């Protein structure tokens, strides 16, 4: 039983990282209608930057976090400028931008892999103590708790930004109807840059909090991209809170699958969840309830 509870705790933590990827997708998608397939590789970049600054350069945690935030956001903005913005003026092209973000993620992954070399993943120090917190039979490692709290805090921050600030309102207006928003003087390109900026920040936070958990693994990018997508598909596209729930369902589902079935087929658990959702309720648990048009 305690094994199961520990699996749930770990699942919520890992799921939180998927949730951060899904949140990044949603922010970018709402403003640009672009599904940024490089989101997972931006998280991977955050992980590797954290490893380099903390483990290799021995920077203090706060300085490393600041640098990761700046670095990943800069790459995300570069992506927007290079491979996304050209498509904003081509409304009918619904394949090109996806391929372009795929190409960008391939470049990021190859560059980081070449720089990192053929080394096995190295541990990354966590800002929190490594001693587990015991609650009865359940033990929680603080770094897992950090991932969970990071998702809750970042989601709250993004929602507050949407609701409370002028820019957030402008972004929601753009999501609603880009042409009308443009008529009101909201520049679609600035909204697009802003969305990729926020998406980069979210990915940076995700990378920083997950680095102590997964170590400096250069192969996780695509995995996170796809898990974030599954979280969205489960929760329902466009719903931030739905994505949160979807991410936790996926994270916990995977951990329980590892425990009771086989860790070697963990990736099958995600697929099974995704296929079940697509078969039963294609728009997700919290989606609009009906396909827009079939």
């Amino acid at each position: 039983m305690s094994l199961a509870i520990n699996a749930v705790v770990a699942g919520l933590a890992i799921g939180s990282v998927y949730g951060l990827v899904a949140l990044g997708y949603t922010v970018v998608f709402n403003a640009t209608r672009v599904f940024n397939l490089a989101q997972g590789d931006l998280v991977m970049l955050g992980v590797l930057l954290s490893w380099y600054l903390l483990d290799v350069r021995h920077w203090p945690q706060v300085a490393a976090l600041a640098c990761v935030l700046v670095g990943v956001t800069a790459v995300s903005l570069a992506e927007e400028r290079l491979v996304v913005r050209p498509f904003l003026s081509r409304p009918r092209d619904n394949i090109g931008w996806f391929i372009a973000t795929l190409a960008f993620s391939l470049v990021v992954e190859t560059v980081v892999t070449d720089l990192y070399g053929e080394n096995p993943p190295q541990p990354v120090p966590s800002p929190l103590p490594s001693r587990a917190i015991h609650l009865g039979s359940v033990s929680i490692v603080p770094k897992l708790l950090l991932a969970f709290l990071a998702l809750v805090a970042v989601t709250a921050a993004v929602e507050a930004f949407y609701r409370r600030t002028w820019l957030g309102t402008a972004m929601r207006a753009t999501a609603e109807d880009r042409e009308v928003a443009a008529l009101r003087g909201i520049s679609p390109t600035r909204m697009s840059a802003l969305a990729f900026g926020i998406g980069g920040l979210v990915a940076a936070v995700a990378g920083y909090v997950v680095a102590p958990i997964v170590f400096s693994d250069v192969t996780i990018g695509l995995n996170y991209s796809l898990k974030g997508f599954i979280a969205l598909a489960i929760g329902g596209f466009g719903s931030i809170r739905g994505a949160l729930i979807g991410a936790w369902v996926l994270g916990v589902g995977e951990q329980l699958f590892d425990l009771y079935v086989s860790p070697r087929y963990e990736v099958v658990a995600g697929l099974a969840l995704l296929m079940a959702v697509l078969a039963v309720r294609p728009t997700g648990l919290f989606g609009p309830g009906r396909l827009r048009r079939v």
Partner: protein
Amino acid sequence: MGLGPAERRRLGACAAGALVLALAPLAFGSPYRLDQFDYILSLVMVAIGLNVATGFAGQLSLGPSATFAVGGYTAVVLANDHPGVGLAAMAVAAMAAAGVFGLVVGLPALRVGGFYLANVTLFFALLVPIVATNLSVTGRANGISLVANPAFVQSPSGAALYETTLAVVGLLTLGCWALLHSRVGREFVAVRTSEELALALGIPTYRAKLAAFGLSSLPAGLGGAFYAFSQQFVSPGSVSVSLSIYLVAACVIGGLGSVTGPVVGGLLVIGLGQFLGSLAQYEGVIFGVALAAFAVALPQGIVGSGEALRAAVASYVRSAPLGPGRPAPPEARRPAPAWAPAPPAGGAGSLVVSGARRSFGGVVAVDGVDLEVARGQLHGLIGSNGSGKTTLLNLVCGFYRLEAGQVRLGEARIDHLPAWRVARAGVARTFQTPQLVAEASVLDNVVPAAERHLRCNAVASVLRLPPGPRTARAARARALEALELVGLAKAASERVAELPHGTRRVVEVARALALEPGFVLLDEPAAGLGQSEVERLKSVLASMVAAGLGVLLVEHNVPLVLELADRVTVLHQGRAIAQGGPESLRGNQLVAQVFLGRELAGSGDQP
């Protein structure tokens, strides 16, 4: 069938390319090199398949390596257990397995549009090597090697195997050409252009997408079989997810949607990957940058850009073509050809909307509207922007679902039918923003509508078996007739991209007519037309009505509607505030107030 100069040039280039490839063994005759060429060609097959789903039908698949793996493992396991089966049996088994796999993936993934298919297929590309690593039947991490099986004999081998592989690639390319220029291919292109267009043409889009995705997995499976046979080895490492991305890169760089694009791109990308040598570790960067550059700057790829360039030069050299933007040629005024619309399934009854209601997130867009369009009658629908005209039109043709009320065609209710069935029942439509294949000719845009009622099965159409060629000719004749009716017969061979916006709406009218409907819903056909074109449109509308069609005309040009309509419905904030003959509306105070913004008499502050 005569070939035009463009076709002859293309055919010549293909023949030259094929000859060079066929003679390549003379130049690089070493067994190792031949092995590499076999490898490249087997992946070119996969790229050809990918192009059917992604290029022709616009369904982005990012997992061709998974289908390739299913084919490859099927073939290698079969040959390992039964070493005597030979290449043909391996190929058939691999295609069958790949086809089943394609349907299993496509059935759920295609239910939601957009990037769902891309993500799901990418997920499978990631998953298949992991599963293969853990299964004993696939030889786990080491894979399965036929070299280690003394009973397995590779025959044909060497140059004979290479030429066989090349011949199969040639056949697949030819097959793609036949597919693209058949009614199946035209349906795929309609789906790619826009799902709304496909539905309005009576094409069941989900089925078409599934057909494209299923078909695309066959060459991928075949590629897997040739890979397994020539390399005699399949392992998880040879079907990694990065292979999928390189195959996508091959299609995009070569030219998505063109027949020879995946071959050119596959030879380039996969071939280059074989000869990178010490640069191999930068493969991802090189192809990633190339892929992004092509996707951003040259979305038509090498083949498509070459053709577009030639077309641009040709249209520059030709003196200004018969401009549809010019005044209408006088022959447009002569009586239109007799047009006898086929009786729709619903019989000769009217198109009746009663109590139609639809809201979007709390805003009631259409609120309890009743109207009736009889055959041989033009019903005008006017109202200010946002009054619900287009929503009502979308409700009638099945694009939106009613919340209350019903739509009937004669006695039959059609409001529960999917949009493509409504189109087949005899209700055609045009779009406010024209939905046309920009790079195709005017005629080719109308043909898919004209062949809707012509019986011909898909296989006969692709393979040019009877009655394929005959129905194709009949469809072209019908399409030309429809174009003549709207006065665009002389522009039949123009590319749509070169037409002015207003004329594109007229092409849409011709396409709707070619469906031989009982009713036509026109969404602002006169917007953007010049005066002479409006005159021509008027005569077209008049002859449509005279031929017994029922027309529902959504239009901002109120004088036009009042001149032509038998009955007019005025919508305001989703409600029908007035209905009647044009004369009765001219004096209607309420209409004048709402629609023309005039104050009601006696409301006070008028000068």
